[in-house]
């Protein structure tokens, strides 16, 4: 995409860097996490230098992810307040998936789906962190009772699986909705795109109240 002065600034460089840091961490943490999740994924441990390295690296990457995600959380917390409009938006998910955005209420910088994703991810990351500490055998597990470790193992697996599913969805939406990647890659989006998908934000950015 050409660097058109008409384009709107969607994410600053810092925000993009933050996002991609989270993304990279996620990929690593998900791939290494899958190693322990189910035998079919065990070969993924080769990507990390073997099972032992996967076991060693996974929690540290997880901590990095938590830190990076924390920054995003602080930054985007307010923008992700779910409003009545968002709830209305969410009721039109089926139309959206059919590519029909006509009936949808106007979305701000983030639409209802993105906001929901945001909060679900917050929940997953929090659960993963807390349960992850409990099952981190090298440093913390001996401090906790066995029943809690067992519970944490279940929570961690569930939250991890949920998060993977959410991110798979997130990635697909990014691919399917053409040009949306541009916002996160180059920071800029074309006005027509913004007007189509995030009209409220478009107006806010351009002063155009059409």
């Amino acid at each position, binding site marked *: 995409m050409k660097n058109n002065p008409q384009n709107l600034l969607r994410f600053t460089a810092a925000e993009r860097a933050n996002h991609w840091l989270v993304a990279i961490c996620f990929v690593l943490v998900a791939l290494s996490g*899958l190693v322990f999740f*189910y*035998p079919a*994924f*065990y*070969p*993924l441990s*080769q990507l990390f230098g073997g099972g032992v390295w996967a076991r060693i690296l996974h929690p540290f990457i997880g901590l990095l992810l938590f830190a990076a995600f924390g920054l995003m959380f602080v930054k985007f917390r307010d923008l992700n307040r779910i409003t009545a409009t968002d709830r209305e938006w969410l009721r039109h998910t089926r139309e959206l998936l059919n590519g029909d955005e006509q009936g949808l209420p106007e979305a701000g910088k983030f639409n209802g789906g993105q906001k929901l994703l945001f909060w679900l991810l917050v929940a997953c990351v929090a659960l993963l962190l807390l349960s992850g500490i409990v099952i981190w055998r090298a440093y913390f597990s001996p401090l906790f009772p066995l029943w809690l470790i067992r519970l944490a193992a279940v929570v961690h697996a569930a939250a991890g699986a949920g998060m993977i599913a959410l991110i798979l969805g997130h990635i697909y939406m990014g691919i399917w909705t053409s040009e949306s990647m541009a916002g996160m890659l180059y920071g800029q989006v074309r006005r027509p795109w913004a007007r189509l998908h995030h009209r409220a934000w478009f107006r806010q950015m351009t002063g155009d109240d059409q």
Partner: protein
Amino acid sequence: MQVTRRQFFKFCAGGVGGSSAALLGLSTGEALAEEVRAFKLTRTTEVRNTCPYCSVGCGIIMSSLGDRAKNVTTTIIHIEGDADHPVNRGTLCPKGASLLDFIHSPNRLHYPEYRAPGSSEWKRISWDEALGRIARLMKQDRDANFVARTPDGLTVNRWLTTGFLAASAASNETGYLTNKMLRSLGAVALDNQARV
């Protein structure tokens, strides 16, 4: 939740089919029989002995490194009960089962030592120095204090001023030699652990 193996395979098949990882073709090798720690006594040399602690006299088998070939310095690496022994039938108590750590204790003595009067440390000396000096001290004492006859004229030939304690775990052969030697010196201040 119980999952039968059949169900399990079904789930697996689904999981594998859906996972990109398996498509990468990376799979770890799966052995039909696994490596276990190799049996450590396969070619050690076995020597039969008797536990030196209590008086049950359990038979033990000491396994030592190497086959006693010329170029090998042998060392015992394992001790366990002698299954043929009629009393212990292969069993050993916690003391017998730990004999390896007794014979290889860090507190085993390796060379003769001497502590001078008033000194607060040991000095290493040679066997010749040690035995020479002890023999000299014993002779001095014996020559000075040997009682050949009592004042009332009885022949007694006894030496009272140096005492001896015989080991409780020394072999009969050592004990016999010790007694034979000491009685020739006229020693009577001689005892062993039997009283204690």
